[in-house]
């Protein structure tokens, strides 16, 4: 059944239409054939009725000629007329032989038989008369001629009667034929109409099978045009032209849907990226804001600090003078380097200054050591990344510990990288805390008064943005109380990577 449907489905529209028309034409043709067959049959049957083997007119003519021949012969005894008589007699006998000679249930046939017999009797009398004439029996042939004449009249009357009967019968038959034809006209019209209706229905059904998918397709196309790709249109089994188009359409809609999905996905990704960029910008702005907050009228501050340093010098307070000078340097660096990049040397100096200031603040409690490989002072890196690390080591590492805290900073080249390591022996961190810090979830509290305001997450972000790589910052700690080590990997490049 499926196979059959498949076969049917493979028919092209042209073939379908052809088949449809052929089928309907065949139906009409068949009906016509039947009708005409019936008509022909009726005609043949009626023909059979009309058909008489012998033309009665011919018979009458022959009879008249024969009678004329006899009369002439008996009158003149001419051999020509005798010859004619015999010839006509033979003709007449031939014709008579074709007339009915049986006793059948039919008036006309019986009349034919009577004519045949009467004509034979007539011919016998005529023959006798001819013989009598030859024998010169005048009285006899006269009497025989009279008798023949009488039979002749009888035959003529019978033929006339038969003619009349046939005329009547033919009229009747004609009426029957006419009735049949009339009836046939009505019936055939009816049948034709019925056949036409059947044809129309068939056509409608077949055309619907062709146009219905088209209609569906058009509806679906409209829907698609309106932007609805969630179609209910099913792929069809039909493999005709419409089926092919429908199949292609369904495929196309599916492809469009997939394409739209993909586009949406990529747009979402792009969106995410933009969001990230925005976030980064926010980070930077945040950092810059913090700088700016710290730079409130920095020149006034620096000038004031310089004035303070000179004052201290004048008062011979050398230490104070140095302190103030270092502080001024530190903040100046902060302000100056806010545009983004710095050299390693500058960064290290800033760290030194910062540690000095802290040591003044905390009475030299912070032991800071650094170990810097030579010739690395000019390496470019984002500004203000080392100081926050040292600040963190102070703030979160050694500030609150009972033992003597120290911070160790080392810078060493490793391949095409620079490895910067800030290690302390302070409070240490748990693994969880490390993960949180690296993920940027542990924000520094603003209440932290000793902070320059630049957190580790800021440093990480800027590093990643500056170098375009991830995992440049690693935090190591053996646990609480075991100290912390922050490692930075600085890719060494001849040119700075951009402005942050």
């Amino acid at each position, binding site marked *: 059944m499926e196979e059959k449907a498949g076969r049917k489905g493979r028919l092209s529209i042209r073939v379908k239409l052809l088949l449809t028309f052929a089928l309907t034409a065949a139906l009409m043709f068949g*009906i016509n054939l*039947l009708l005409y067959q*019936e008509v022909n049959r*009726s005609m043949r*049957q*009626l023909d*059979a*009725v009309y058909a008489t083997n012998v033309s009665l007119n011919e018979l009458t003519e022959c009879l008249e000629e024969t009678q004329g021949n006899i009369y002439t012969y008996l009158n003149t005894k001419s051999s020509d007329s005798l010859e004619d008589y015999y010839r006509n007699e033979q003709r007449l006998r031939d014709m008579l032989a074709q007339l009915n000679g*049986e*006793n*059948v*249930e*039919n*008036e*006309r*046939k*019986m009349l034919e*038989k*009577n004519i045949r*017999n*009467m004509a*034979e*009797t*007539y011919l016998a009398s005529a023959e006798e008369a001819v013989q009598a004439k030859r024998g010169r029996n005048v009285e006899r042939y006269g009497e025989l001629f009279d008798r023949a004449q*009488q*039979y002749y*009249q*009888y035959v*003529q*009357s*019978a033929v*006339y*009667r038969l003619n*009349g009967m046939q005329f009547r*019968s033919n009229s*009747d*038959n004609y009426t*029957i034929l006419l*009735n*049949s034809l009339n*009836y*046939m006209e009505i*019936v055939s019209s*009816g*049948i034709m109409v*019925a*056949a036409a*209706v*059947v044809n129309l*229905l*068939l056509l409608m*059904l077949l055309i619907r099978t062709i146009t219905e998918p088209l209609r569906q397709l058009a509806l679906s196309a409209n829907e698609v045009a309106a932007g609805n790709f969630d179609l*209910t249109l*099913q792929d069809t089994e039909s493999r005709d032209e419409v089926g092919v188009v429908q199949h292609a359409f369904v495929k196309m809609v599916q492809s469009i849907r997939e394409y739209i999905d993909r586009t949406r996905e990529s747009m979402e990704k792009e969106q995410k990226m933009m969001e990230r960029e925005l976030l980064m910008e926010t980070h930077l702005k945040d950092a810059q804001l913090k700088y700016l907050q710290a730079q409130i009228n920095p020149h006034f501050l620096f000038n004031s600090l310089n004035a303070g340093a000179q004052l201290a010098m004048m008062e011979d307070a050398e230490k104070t003078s140095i302190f103030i000078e270092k502080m001024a340097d530190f903040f100046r660096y902060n302000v100056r380097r806010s545009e983004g990049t710095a050299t390693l040397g500058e960064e290290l100096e800033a760290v030194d200054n910062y540690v000095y200031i802290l040591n003044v603040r905390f009475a030299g409690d912070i032991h800071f050591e650094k170990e810097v490989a030579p010739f690395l002072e000019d390496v470019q890196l984002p500004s203000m990344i080392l100081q926050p690390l040292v600040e963190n080591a102070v703030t979160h590492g050694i500030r609150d510990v009972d033992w003597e805290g120290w911070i160790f900073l080392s810078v060493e080249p490793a391949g095409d990288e620079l490895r910067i390591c800030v290690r302390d022996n302070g409070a240490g961190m748990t693994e969880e805390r490390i993960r949180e810090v690296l993920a940027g979830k542990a924000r520094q509290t603003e209440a932290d008064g000793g902070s320059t305001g630049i957190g580790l997450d800021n440093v990480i972000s800027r590093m990643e943005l500056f170098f375009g790589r991830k995992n440049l910052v690693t935090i190591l700690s053996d646990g609480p109380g075991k100290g912390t080590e922050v490692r930075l990997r600085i890719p060494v490049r001849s040119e700075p990577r951009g402005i942050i």
Partner: protein
Amino acid sequence: MRGQADERTRKKKRKQSGRSLVLLLVLLGAAMSAVLLGWRYYLRQIQQDGIAGYASDQTYDRHYVMIADDSSSLLWQDIYQNAKRAAVECGAYLELLNDWESVEYELTDYMNIAVASKVDGIIVKPDGTVKMRQAINAAEAAGIPVITVLEDDSASDRTSFVGVNSYQLGTVYGTQILSCVDADTRQITVLLNRSDAGKDLVYKQLRATVQEGLARGQTIGINSLTNTPGSFFGAEELLRNLLQDEAQRPDILVCINETDSECAYYAMVDYNQVGSVKLIGYYQTERMLAAVQKGIVPIVITLDTAQLGTCSIEALEEYYSMGYVSSYFSVDLDIITQENVQQFLETETS
């Protein structure tokens, strides 16, 4: 899931529409076939009706002809129908050889035609002429048996006679006349027809019977009136004169011919003689039976046409099977009066 359900629904729908299409086609096909078949049947029927006679393949061994003086009369129609039925049963075709439109033939001409047509038997009512006798003799000479019916020509060579002989008929008529005679009866008139050749014998016997049966001292005039030869409608004229002329008007009017009886009946009614003239009619035509039923006509004498028809065919068949046949077959006479008319009416209706 929904797709599958849709598919199922679609398939179901398709199946349903396919089924309804098939059903529709089958119905239409059936209707068309029915019309076609009906049409064929109708055509064949009307054609068969039209050509039944011609197309019949019924054949017969023998061909008889019946020659009647008035084939259109009910009497002859009855006789012919009965004889025909009997003939068909015996395997013979019976032709009513009469009334050829072309020429005005006499009975003898029809006899000659029958002989010339070499038929196997002739049933004829002779008209009593010499020519008829010669024709009968000629037929017999040609080996064709001739059966005379209703009237006999005993002088001819006819093979057999089927009917009522004149003596018997005269006696029956006489007896019936006597039953109608009352004290006031003065005149009885018997209407004879020119073709009823043997009727003078009937008349003679009738008169003899009546005269014999009359009461002593009663004198009743019995005369006969013969229809003027050569006049087709003479009977009517004759009756008008008879009934309108008081001197001639009979008390009892006797008819021994079917046509005369009807004529007499009409004349009697037309000239207002119902009751004053008693009519003794002949043959059970519908009108005569009705008249008897109403009491207008007291007596109608009739013969058994079925018997007549059957016997004439039997006579021919017997002749053919045995080589000889009895020369006389008697046919029963029936007397219809108001008492038994119902019975005849019923037979007529059936």
